[in-house]
């Protein structure tokens, strides 16, 4: 298809002059957006730029104050997402909308007219399996959602909208949750779908990816389009970044050479099971020193979450975990915290914050029980407010006030809030899981800078990330996990993406981690019970 000869018949979606005003904010300011049939159109922009709002307008969740929407040549005015779905538009949200206690197939069938009364689940399992195969998506239709990793859950979401017959797919930051290989697979899947005539809107922050996947792109900044449907050919990453943030972004991290100090964290022969009661960690040995960043690479679901959970006291395990010489395995989250642990969890909203409570109440989550925030029984909310105000300024958290509910913050500001709370406790060990996932360029830089600053202060940092470039630019050493094992540890200077990639998919083994220290006590019996 030549891009120039576009007639209206070739357009799947045409949004003209869309304006949407929220109190105090112009979320979309006269935005034009067109989607051709069979193309992948990337929608770029920082958090709060208005991408999701624009897509929610298309999905019928918001009514624009002005502007027209044409889908497949027809003027439409959707009253609800149901209307949009009926017109063949489907959206995979960033936060999945799945029922945890139902199977993949059951989730896919939700909201459909068929089956009417009797559910022959086997028949539909087979249909789902066939559909998955058609698009090269690997999934077990009989698995329950809570058993699946985040990456697998996303595949269910995609299958769901495909099953619902969507011709136009909106993907809200789909690769944010995926490992590089999975992301590549997804991009392949999307390309295949585009070849079959489906149109894809691909919302993303990741510049490389956008260039790899999209035919054209639209960039939003502060509600306005700074590029409308330009072709990706010949455009540079730097040019995209400056269109997105309005200034040249250079990932120029100030990482000093420094010799690591004493051992802070030591894992000896640590094994654990996952939620399905299957082995998730197999005799993991690791050590981590002061002023060192150890990056954990691996495809999602290879034991990284469980590794973080055993260290933070949220999961039972066998073996020994020593933080500054103190045993913290199988104790409690409280024991890990008081031994000097800070934890930046993967799930910022579900785990990292209490969404309906104020900023103040969120920043004192781990300091509410000692001076100066509280005395013997009373929480001094005045002191807490002062503390919150300080952190808000120091970490540049953008919020109307410290009384604002955490859920009203954008992703980047929420992460800054969590970092502010965790780092202000002057931790010895920081465990950060996907700290930059889903953040915009500006916020990523701020988060990475903060981690490097902690490194220079002498904290030990365990960084779990699926963004290999980020991992390699930040870490001093990189360990690769595959099926619950550490299959290789290498110095950052010797590490290269190809070797790591091969290790991640299990076709190469390197040196094991820290040589196992002499076991002081016999490891206890493997606990068959998976912790929550």
């Amino acid at each position, binding site marked *: 298809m030549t891009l120039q000869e576009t007639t209206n018949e070739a357009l799947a979606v045409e949004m003209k002059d869309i304006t949407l005003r*929220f*109190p*105090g904010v112009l979320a979309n300011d006269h935005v034009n957006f067109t989607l051709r049939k069979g193309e992948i159109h990337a929608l770029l922009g920082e958090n709060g730029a208005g991408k999701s709002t624009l897509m929610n307008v298309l999905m019928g969740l918001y009514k624009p104050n002005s502007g027209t929407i044409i889908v497949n040549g027809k003027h439409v005015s959707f009253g609800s997402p149901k209307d949009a779905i009926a017109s063949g538009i489907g959206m995979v949200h960033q936060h999945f909308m799945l029922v945890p206690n139902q199977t993949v197939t059951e989730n896919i069938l939700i909201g459909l007219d068929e089956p009417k009364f009797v559910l022959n689940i086997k028949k539909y399992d087979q249909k789902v399996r066939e559909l998955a195969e058609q698009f090269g998506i690997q999934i077990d239709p009989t698995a329950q959602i809570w058993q699946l990793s985040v990456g697998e859950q996303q595949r269910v979401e995609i299958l769901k909208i495909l099953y619902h017959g969507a011709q136009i797919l909106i993907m809200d930051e789909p690769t944010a949750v995926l490992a590089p290989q999975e992301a590549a697979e997804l991009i392949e899947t999307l390309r295949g779908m585009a070849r079959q005539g489906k149109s894809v809107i691909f919302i993303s922050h990741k510049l490389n990816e956008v260039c790899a996947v999209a035919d054209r792109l639209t960039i939003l900044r502060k509600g306005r389009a700074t590029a409308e449907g330009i072709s990706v050919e010949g455009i540079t990453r730097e040019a995209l970044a400056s269109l997105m943030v309005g200034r040249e972004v250079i990932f120029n991290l100030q990482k000093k050479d420094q010799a690591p100090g004493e051992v802070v964290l030591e894992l000896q022969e640590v094994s654990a099971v996952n939620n399905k009661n299957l082995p998730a960690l197999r005799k993991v040995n690791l050590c981590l020193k002061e002023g060192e960043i150890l990056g954990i690479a691996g495809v999602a679901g290879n034991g990284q979450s469980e590794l973080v959970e055993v260290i*933070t*006291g*949220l999961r039972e395990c066998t073996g020994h975990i020593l933080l500054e010489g103190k045993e913290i395995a199988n104790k*409690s*989250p*409280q024991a*890990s*915290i*008081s031994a000097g642990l800070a*934890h930046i*969890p993967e*799930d910022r909203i*579900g*785990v*990292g*914050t*209490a*969404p*309906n*409570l104020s900023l103040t*109440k969120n920043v*004192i*989550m*781990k300091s*509410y*029980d000692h001076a100066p925030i*509280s005395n013997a*029984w*009373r*929480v001094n*909310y005045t002191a807490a407010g002062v503390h919150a105000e300080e952190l808000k300024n120091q970490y540049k958290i953008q919020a109307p006030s410290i009384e*604002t*509910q955490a859920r009203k913050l954008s992703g980047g500001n929420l992460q800054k809030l969590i970092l502010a709370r965790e780092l202000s406790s002057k931790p010895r060990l920081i465990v950060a899981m996907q700290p930059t996932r889903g953040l915009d360029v500006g916020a990523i830089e701020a988060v990475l800078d903060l981690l490097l600053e902690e490194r220079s202060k002498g904290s030990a940092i365990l960084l779990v990330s699926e963004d290999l470039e980020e991992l390699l630019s930040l870490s001093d050493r990189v360990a690769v996990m595959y099926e619950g094992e550490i299959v290789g540890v290498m110095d950052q200077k010797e590490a290269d993406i190809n070797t790591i990639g091969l290790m991640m998919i299990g076709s190469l083994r390197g040196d094991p981690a820290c040589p196992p220290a002499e076991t002081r006590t016999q490891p206890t019996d493997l606990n068959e019970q998976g912790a929550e």
Partner: protein
Amino acid sequence: MGLRLDVQKRTEDYPKWLPAATSVGAVLLAFVFSGLILLSVGADPIRIYSFFWTASFGSWGAVSDVIVKATPLLLIGLACAFAFKMKLWNIGAEGQFYMGAFFASMVILLPMVDLEATPKVLVLGLMMLMGMLGGALYGFIPGILRAKYNINEVITTLMLNYIAVFWNNYWIFGKYSDAGFQMTKMFPKIAWLPRLSDFAKQYKGFSGITLHLGVIFGLIAAVIVWLILYKSRWGYKITLIGDNPKAAKYAGLNITRNIVLVFMFSGALAGLAGMAEVSGVVHRLQERISTNYGFSGVIIAWLAKLNPFAVILVSVLFGALIVAGREIQPSGVSFLIQGIILFLVISSDVLLKYTIRVVRTDKNGEIVQAKSAAVEEAE
């Protein structure tokens, strides 16, 4: 051309006065709706309401009756509000109330102390402690079941209510019955909470005023609950667990222990209400000492938006409805109003999440202009 409701999700914080305003609005609207229902069956709502007013606030005696009725409601409302703050749905205040009454009565019925020789203060103090202990133990059961085995507390507390009622009946009929009636013998005066009428000799006006010390327990409990929920470390933990248990666990809180403790504290408040009722009002253990206080408490806590001081006001309103309801036939009218109040208060939460405006529409159903920016009491 036409009019239509335009419902928009609130994107900014609602003003601080709004929750109070919607609650008051809901109560007023409930009286309007009840009035319409009364009108439809041929009654005169204005006359009924003015009668309600004189029956509940027309004289000092009436006011005293209202406060006496409000006392158990206040304590139970606080018990519910406390548990609800952590999203523990304790529907079992009724059972905890009965167990509190039973344990407190045991001080006299066994008797636990020498009733001739022990000073009144000690007897009453022991009854209070036993009442709270009874309620707390009865709250412990659903607490531990929920905390350890994740058994739904709505079901367990609801069922335990019946067990408590029949447990009480068993002892009342089986062992302590007063000549086969469904009540025990009258307690000796040493077990009675002081009443204003006790001082009628000094102050003539107190003659016949049955207001007892229990209301002071209620007021002190309201202050304590407020201090715990809004000022203390424990209250912070309760709020945090209530909002996001996963975050609380991640922050190192012991959720299991807190579920049990909150349930026991809630039970203790309901148990104290039971003690105040046997010691301050009926002066014996008997069948049906509660007229569904446990369930009214749920409504009161909700109506008060879990605010301990608002619980005081709401329980007085409910006390007045009960007192007035006794004076009127059919007595169901006050239950009708209670039900409508609950229904409307719960619906009024919609106004905290959405703004609702009446808008003018043109032929195509498109909005022409906003008619009024004010939030309408639209349901």
